[in-house]
């Protein structure tokens, strides 16, 4: 089985936010939640880079480690998913997540945040694959159809890569070797405790 990962080649990302829009549209993500977002660091200064970020589907996932109801599980493809039926919306996964991935449909009102929502790697949730219940809770399940996450699939500059970790690392390494520069794999150190050496 593959070990699925995301990799954003920040030297290619043009901050068009198409990945953000595609994700929202594909899964009909509720208002106020962005499963994916583009962050621009050093904006307007030397060293400016834009990075498309979502849940990184961490190794030894921090969200899963702190969840009081243990509602997370990791699939055979190493995708980190959660069960909204056992989530109590406590907000702990957001405190532990290094990437700000978990989000909530409501803000506050006595802690009633609603069920946590985050990137599913287009792999749905614990419900039966590609059913209406799965769609309303988690969005579409492209992985079950043999497709990769939509954000990466439709990235116009192919900055955002999704797929087996080894394969996307090889693609990135080749790119860096050919063009001669690269700011590295954002989040990989934190999420996977590894890096791509070029």
């Amino acid at each position, binding site marked *: 089985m593959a070990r699925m990962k995301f990799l954003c080649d920040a030297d290619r990302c043009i901050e068009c936010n198409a990945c953000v829009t595609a994700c929202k549209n594909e899964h009909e993500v509720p208002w106020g939640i962005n499963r994916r977002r583009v*962050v621009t660091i*050093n904006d307007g200064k030397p060293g400016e880079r834009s990075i498309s970020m979502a849940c990184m589907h961490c190794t030894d996932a921090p969200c899963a480690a*702190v969840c009081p109801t243990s509602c997370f599980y990791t699939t055979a493809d190493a995708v980190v998913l959660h069960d909204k039926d056992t989530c109590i919306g406590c*907000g702990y996964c957001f405190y532990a997540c290094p990437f700000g991935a978990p989000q909530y449909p409501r803000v506050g009102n006595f802690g009633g945040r609603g069920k946590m929502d985050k990137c599913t790697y287009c792999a749905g949730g614990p419900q039966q694959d590609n059913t209406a219940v799965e769609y309303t809770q988690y969005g579409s399940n492209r992985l079950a159809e043999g497709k990769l996450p939509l954000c990466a699939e439709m990235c116009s500059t192919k900055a955002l890569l999704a797929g087996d970790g080894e394969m996307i690392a090889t693609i990135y390494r080749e790119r860096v070797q050919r063009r*001669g520069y690269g700011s*590295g794999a954002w989040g990989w150190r934190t999420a996977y405790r590894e890096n791509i050496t070029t």
Partner: protein
Amino acid sequence: MKRLILAPFLVLLLALAAPSFAQNAPSQAGSGRGTVNAEEMELQRMLQGGRVEGRTSIPDARSEVLIQPQGKAWRDFHNITLAWVGGIAVGGMILILITFYATRGRITIEGGPAGRTISRFNILERANHWMVASSFIVLGLTGLNLTFGRHVLLPILGPYAFANISLWGKIAHNFVAFPFTLGIVVMLLLWVKDNIPNGRDIEWFKMGGGLIGKGHPRAGRFNGGQKMVFWITVLGGGIVAASGYFLIFPFWGEFGVADMQLAHIIHSVLSVLMVAAMIAHIYIGSLGMEGAFDAMGSGEVDLNWAKEHHGLWVEQEMAKARQVVAPSGVKPAE
């Protein structure tokens, strides 16, 4: 001649510089946008604090944080530190009390019950005490469920029943917070004047409060131990309530994830320590001491109990009572 000698050095220097040159040069030449390095930035923030932050087009300040390595520290706090501190404080206190009960047994009224009683707490004081106590128990149990439930209850109940209980527990925790806070304020107003620490409390602690040593140190309405319980409740409860409301209204104003983590740490550490302290309080107020429960039960305590534990207070009450029966200036009948 000089040049000939220098030449090999120059070659050596170039050879030494070459690898770093090869690494750096392309990244600058290629992009012309300056260099940043993901690995370096993440490592630096992890070791020196701070976050990788930027700008987003989403009107939500939280989305601007790209990477916050502090999540790891909070995870370790929640899963390791809090579990151990809580486990040791609560478990340790229960062990101490069991040993205490086994060796010292129940503390009895030395002179035996007098049969006559004296009024200690009025209905308002007792009602308020029980409001605080019952909400504290609900808050404590539902809070500890978030810390230990997944290890203790989840295997027994299964995921869905446990999630249901935890969800209701969370709602209860959030709403029972209000009577608790109200009770803390009322408690402060009712009892603060009798709980100002003074020299007698030091004596009281030196004598082990009559629990460990022999004899009963003299005390006013509240003795040193009770004053300690009062201040733990009022100050501890106050801080726990304040940090709790901060957690109930997440990301209020300009506050971000770091503030939430801090509020949670303060809230949960103080909470588990308070739970440990209150277990001792409950023990002494019920099983541990003969006659103590009546103070908060009927509000009437046995006179001998009162004399032993609150001698000065009994004298004051007696004096007051005499005043009512025979106001000053009126000569007692011969």
